[in-house]
Each structure stands twice: as structure tokens, then as C-alpha cells.
């Protein structure tokens, strides 16, 4: 313990607190600048929900200067946990546990819980979207920030056999082999955001795909910069050029693109070993053990205007395992909470044909409330004690 004391002293020092807070301020500054080029969620995961981040020098300079290089910098997780340790060790080493300091201890306990709460949210919260057309039933939500390559065998009349390859795998690996896959996948190109060019628009760009919709329409892929935090209403359309192989024999090269999927281009067939499977690049799906049918979507406007007054979705929730079959109305500020998930009325389809629900699951949702309550109690006690001693001194 004696050996540990200097380390504890170092960890508990006020100088470290100041340095960590200064580093945090600069991280927020850099993360804000980074959103000129990157989407808010990309910045969140690379700058704030990471242990280390390489901050490109370019983000602080005019883009036309084209400055290479990056500085390694502690990410949000590292700074958060160091601040956590700093505060815990300060209480263990420097601060005295006295009743008159109870307010301060509670304030710090609130801060520690806030750090833990954000960490739990960062690693475990899920935020998906469920789109239901009126009259339809849906048993999955999609993560609009992630894509997956779905390989679907529709030969069974009742069930579809699905194998999904996460988009992150397509981005990281050049060859993907897996016993679950009916073929090997060679990733010729993967772009987080890409445009599909057709015919005269190609301007000489090579057509690399010889199968599927890309071959019939002479499509080629052009990489685009990812949608950034400063782009309003823009999102990425990932695309990949994939060569599929079976036992070393090339089946062909396909282009898959989220844009094709979202514009209702049918999945592309691939024939392998005498059976046909479909491939499509789609938003990552998260299947639920229950289903929801949209009975009615209402979009009320103030009379005589286009100003929305209210959005509401009447849904039927069916969960056979839990014996649930009931009708629920979800409307603004009145979400449905079910099985640890919260369903918010988020948006709707053009022409009021369907609803879009935001499905949020956050096991740590209570922690910030608790942290704030503890902090508020601490502040009340701390300043209450100060006020009463001030009043006592005044009387004396």
C-alpha cells in the first residue's frame, strides 16, 4: 500500500483534474470541427465513445490546403474514466469524510454516476427505427446508421433463410469466408457513401460488375464523401462491389447499394449449387420477439392550415410468448414502453400512408436522472449548510 500511495496521490491531484478538464474541452472543440466532414454519429463514436482518437490536422484548416497528418489524442472514454479515477482517488486520499462535507460528497457522487451513466448508454443503448405502412405488420426495426448484406434463400414456401454480413465486415475485410455463407465474398470495393452512375453519366468510368442490375444497366460506383454533421437532411448510401466465388470458381461481380434497396429495386439473384439466393444491401435489421400492426396513422392539422397539430399511430401489439394482444395509441410525448424499449412517434411516410417509430432501448436511462437528483440534493445540502453557518455568524 505504501508503494501505491504515490500513484494514488498522483491520480488524486488537482493538477490532473485541471489537465483532464482542459483535454476534454479541446476534445469537444476538435469533435465539433470534425463535424464539418463527418456525420454526428461517426464523430460521436470516433471522438467521444473511443479510447484514443487520431485527430486530423486538416479539420482545423481550410480544406483546400490539404494538410496530411493527425495527432493521437485521448478519446472520450479514456478522459471520462481518468476523471472518474481522479475523483474517486481524491476522496480516498485527499478529502476527509466528515458530515459537514456530506453535500460535496453527494455532488461528486452525482458526477461519478453521470460518467458511469454515459458509459452504460454508450456501450449498451440501441436506437432503431420501425416503419409500418397502414395495414401491415412488422416484427423488426432497422438501425439506419448501419448496413448489412443480406443473403436470402426464398426456396421454402413459408420461411426465408437469411444470412447477414455486417457492413463493418465488408468495410474491413477483402475476403469473407464463413460456413454459414453459400459462397465466398471478395470485396472489390466498399464505400460508406457512393453514387451509382448510369450510361452517359459514367463519363468513361469502368463497368466492373458483370452480373445483376449493374450489368443490365451498365452501372458504376463513384465514391462520395460521407454526409457530414453540417449537411442538413443528408444521409449516406453505402455501396459495395462484390465478386462471389464458390470453391474457387468465380460466379460473377455484383454491385449492391443501399440506394437500390431504398428505391425498391428488387434483391439481385445469385445462382449457386443449383439454388438461387437473393443478395441485397439494406439497413441493419433487429428482429423482435413481438410484432406490431399499424391500424391507423393520423396527422391532424390546425383547421385551414398545413401546421401539424398532432401525429398519432394506433398500433396492435402482438406478443404470443407474453400473451399480449392489445391496441395502443402512440403519439407525441406519449410513447409506448414495452419489454425495456420505448416507442416514440418519430415521423411518418409521405401521404400519411404509414408511421415511423423510434425504438429506443437504453438500460442506463435512469442513471442520469438519479445522478442529477443526487447532485441536486448535494448542492442543496452544501449551500444550505453554508447559508445556515453564514446566518449564524451574522447573528453572532
Amino acid at each position, binding site marked *: 500500500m505504501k508503494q501505491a500511495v504515490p*500513484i*494514488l496521490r498522483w*491520480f488524486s491531484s488537482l493538477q490532473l483534474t485541471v489537465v483532464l478538464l482542459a483535454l476534454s474541452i479541446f476534445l469537444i472543440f476538435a469533435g465539433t470541427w470534425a463535424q464539418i466532414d463527418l456525420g454526428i454519429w461517426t464523430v460521436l463514436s470516433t471522438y467521444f465513445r473511443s479510447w484514443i482518437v487520431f485527430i486530423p490536422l486538416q479539420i482545423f484548416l481550410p480544406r483546400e490546403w490539404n494538410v496530411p497528418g493527425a495527432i493521437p489524442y485521448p478519446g472520450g472514454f479514456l478522459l471520462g*474514466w481518468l476523471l*472518474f*479515477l481522479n475523483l*474517486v*482517488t481524491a476522496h480516498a486520499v485527499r478529502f476527509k469524510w466528515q458530515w459537514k462535507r456530506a453535500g460535496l460528497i453527494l455532488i461528486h457522487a452525482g458526477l461519478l454516476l453521470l460518467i458511469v451513466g454515459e458509459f452504460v448508454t*454508450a*456501450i449498451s443503448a440501441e436506437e432503431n427505427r420501425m416503419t409500418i405502412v397502414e395495414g401491415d405488420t412488422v*416484427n423488426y426495426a432497422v438501425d439506419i446508421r448501419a448496413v448489412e448484406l443480406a443473403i436470402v434463400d*426464398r426456396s421454402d*414456401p*413459408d*420461411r*426465408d*433463410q*437469411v*444470412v*447477414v454480413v*455486417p457492413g*463493418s*465486415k465488408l468495410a*474491413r475485410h477483402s475476403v469473407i469466408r464463413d460456413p*454459414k*455463407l453459400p459462397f465466398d465474398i471478395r470485396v472489390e470495393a466498399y464505400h460508406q457513401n457512393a453514387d451509382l452512375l448510369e*450510361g*452517359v*453519366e*459514367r*463519363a*468513361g*468510368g*469502368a*463497368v466492373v460488375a*458483370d452480373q445483376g*442490375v449493374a*450489368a*443490365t*444497366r*451498365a452501372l458504376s460506383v463513384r465514391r462520395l464523401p460521407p454526409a457530414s454533421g453540417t*449537411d*442538413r*437532411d*443528408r*444521409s449516406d*448510401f453505402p455501396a459495395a462491389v462484390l465478386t462471389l466465388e464458390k470453391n474457387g470458381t468465380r460466379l*460473377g461481380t455484383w454491385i449492391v447499394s443501399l*440506394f437500390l434497396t*431504398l*428505391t*425498391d*429495386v*428488387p*434483391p439481385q439473384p445469385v445462382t449457386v449449387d443449383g439454388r438461387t439466393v*437473393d443478395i441485397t444491401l439494406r439497413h441493419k435489421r433487429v*428482429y423482435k420477439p413481438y410484432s406490431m400492426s399499424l391500424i391507423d396513422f393520423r396527422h391532424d392539422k390546425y383547421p385551414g392550415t398545413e401546421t401539424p397539430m398532432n401525429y398519432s399511430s394506433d398500433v396492435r401489439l402482438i406478443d404470443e410468448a407474453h400473451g399480449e394482444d392489445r391496441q395502443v395509441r402512440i403519439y407525441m410525448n406519449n410513447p409506448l414502453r414495452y419489454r425495456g424499449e420505448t416507442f416514440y412517434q418519430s415521423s411518418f411516410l*409521405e*401521404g400519411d*400512408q404509414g408511421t415511423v417509430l423510434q425504438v429506443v432501448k437504453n438500460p442506463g436511462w435512469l442513471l442520469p436522472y438519479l445522478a442529477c437528483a443526487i447532485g441536486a440534493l448535494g448542492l442543496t445540502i452544501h449551500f444550505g449548510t453554508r447559508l445556515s453557518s453564514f446566518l449564524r455568524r451574522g447573528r453572532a
Partner: protein
Amino acid sequence: VLPVALALLAALLPGCRDEAIRSYEVPKEAVPVMAPAPPATPAMTAPAHREVPHWTLPRGWREVPGSGMRFATLVVEGTDPPLEVRVTPLSHAARDLLDNVNRWRQQIGLDPVTTTEVGPLVRQIDAGGRPIDFVSLTGPAAPEAPAKQILAGILPGQEQVWFFLMFDEAARVAPHAAAFEAFLGTVHLETHHAGEPAPASAEVPPDMMPAGDAPASSAAPPSGSAATSGAGGMTWTLPPGWSIDPTPGDMRVATIRLPEGGGEVAITRFGGPGGDLLANINRWRNQLGLAPVAGPADQAGESITVAGRSTRLFDMSEAGSAPDRRRTMVVGLAEPDANWFIKVTGPHAALAEAAPAFRQFLGTVRIAGEATP
């Protein structure tokens, strides 16, 4: 405290592992189905129960059915190669004005604009009470490439966003800009319900119809005729018994059927320098199950002159000796900005019989606007 904190930290370290490939079973799901290419009749029908645009064609414009994702193609008569307006419905995901304008700007060699700069580039045209965003963009002229121009109309509907696009060299597009704009003013969307026949999308009032021209007449000559016909700037004379398929299919200028199921001739025109002859040869070889070749010279063929150009007639067949194994014969004709490919495909034995007629047919091919041999 420190060991506890470190243990907690280690336990909570989020995994940096790759996400795994997963397999699962789901109840059967509906799959989007591509609407089949509509019949080549003036009364083009779209899938009933859907929102369909209607318009009045300017004088001298002709409508041909779309295929694949394209709803319809409007052709300006008397232009060679045909100047087209593409009518394409896309989901609302493709609606973003800034994205579209910047994509078009990039395609014609202009720098992208920002959210604040895009406004002045867009003008709203009233179309039956609905505003259509109209954009006209002209690219810079370069010594090796003439300036390109895009005229675009974006009409957000209830279900989809409709794009009307004319994209070609500025010198060809500019004379038709006023007609394009007037045309956009006539576009309106109507919803048709299942079972209710969708009326013709093109309405040609008698006073706008060119004398002697039937509305949206087909370019195809009567089947079996030996008359000179053509499409997309190429003309030819069909051998007896050959017929033009009125629905050429995606990306094809024309499809010609050989008699008695003896195969088909596909005529395509791809823009871009070089047109990737080798890539195309290997694509056709792949379709026949043949291994790729390293260069065009490695592909069997014979020298031939077509439309005044010395080229090669490539000949490739599926492996084996079955008489019905597939065979492809193809010539490529280079133009400065595009490559033509004339390809006949069919059973080996049938093509052996049809080969002389194909060579005779190639001898009649002319590319418009150039000196004939």
C-alpha cells in the same frame, strides 16, 4: 480503490471485435418486384393503384415506354442520336435537392454548391397547382469534350419523387430548353386504383400533333420487312425473316429477333472512351462459362469492315459439342465518345446457319452523320 476501479474498467471495456455473420429464419416476406416493361403502345400503363404522371408532349416529341427503373423515355424527333428525356420515379430517399444538384453539377464538370447557393439555381414551375423544381445546368466546354447541359424537373408525389431529366451536349439540349420547360408545366400526377385502367400518360392534342404523325408511333418497321430501319443513330437493312423487337430492353438501342427462335441481335451503345472492349469481351465470355482473356487479341475472331470501320467479328461458344450450346458473335464499332456493339446470340447450330445473313446484315449497317463507305 485503484484495483477496484481498474477491474471495473477492464470489465466494462467495450469489445473491439468484428461483428459476427449471423444466420436466422424469418416468416416469408414480400419482395419488391420490378414492374415489367410496359407494352410498346401509346397507351402506356403503369401498375394500377399507383400515382402516375400525365403530360402533354411538345410538338415533335415522342414517348417510348420505359423499362427497369425508368417509367418512360421521351424522344425529341429528328435528333440523332436521339435526344431523350428520362422519366424516373424514385423513393423519397432520393429527394434531397442539394444532393441531386451537386451530383448533376459533378457530372457536367461543375464544382458543388452549398445549401445557400443552391436556391438561386432552382426555379419553381407551376404544374397543375403543384410546384416542380426546375434546374438548368451547363458545364464548361473543354477542347476535348464539348460542354454538357442538364435540364431537370423534380416533382415530389405522394408515393415517390418523379425526375424528368434531359442530359446531353449543351449544343443539342439548349434548342429544346423552352420546350422542356413548357412540358414540365403540363405534368400532373394522378392516382389510379387497382382494377381501374390507367389512361395514356401522354396526351397529344390534335393541334400539337405533327401532320401525318400518329401519337407515339413505334419506330419498328413491320415484321419481316426488308426495309431500312434504325435506332439511336444507326441504320441497317434487315435480312428476310428478321424482326425488330418493340421492347429492346435495358440499355439496348435495338433488339432484333432471328426467325424461328434462332437467336437475337442486341445493339448497344455505351458512352465513355474505349468502352472497355476487353471488359465486355470477358463479360460475354463469362456468360458462356468461358475463362477471361488477357487482351482482345486473344479472343478468336476475324477481320471485318462494318460501317466503314475495320474491326473484328469475335466468335465464342460454350464448351462442348452439343448443337444447342450457346454461341455469341459480336463486333465493336468505336466512335469518339461511345462504342457500339452488335451482338448475335443463339444456339450454335442455328447461328451457323444464320452467320451469312448476320454478315450481310453487318454490311448494311451505317452510323448516321458519317460518310458511308
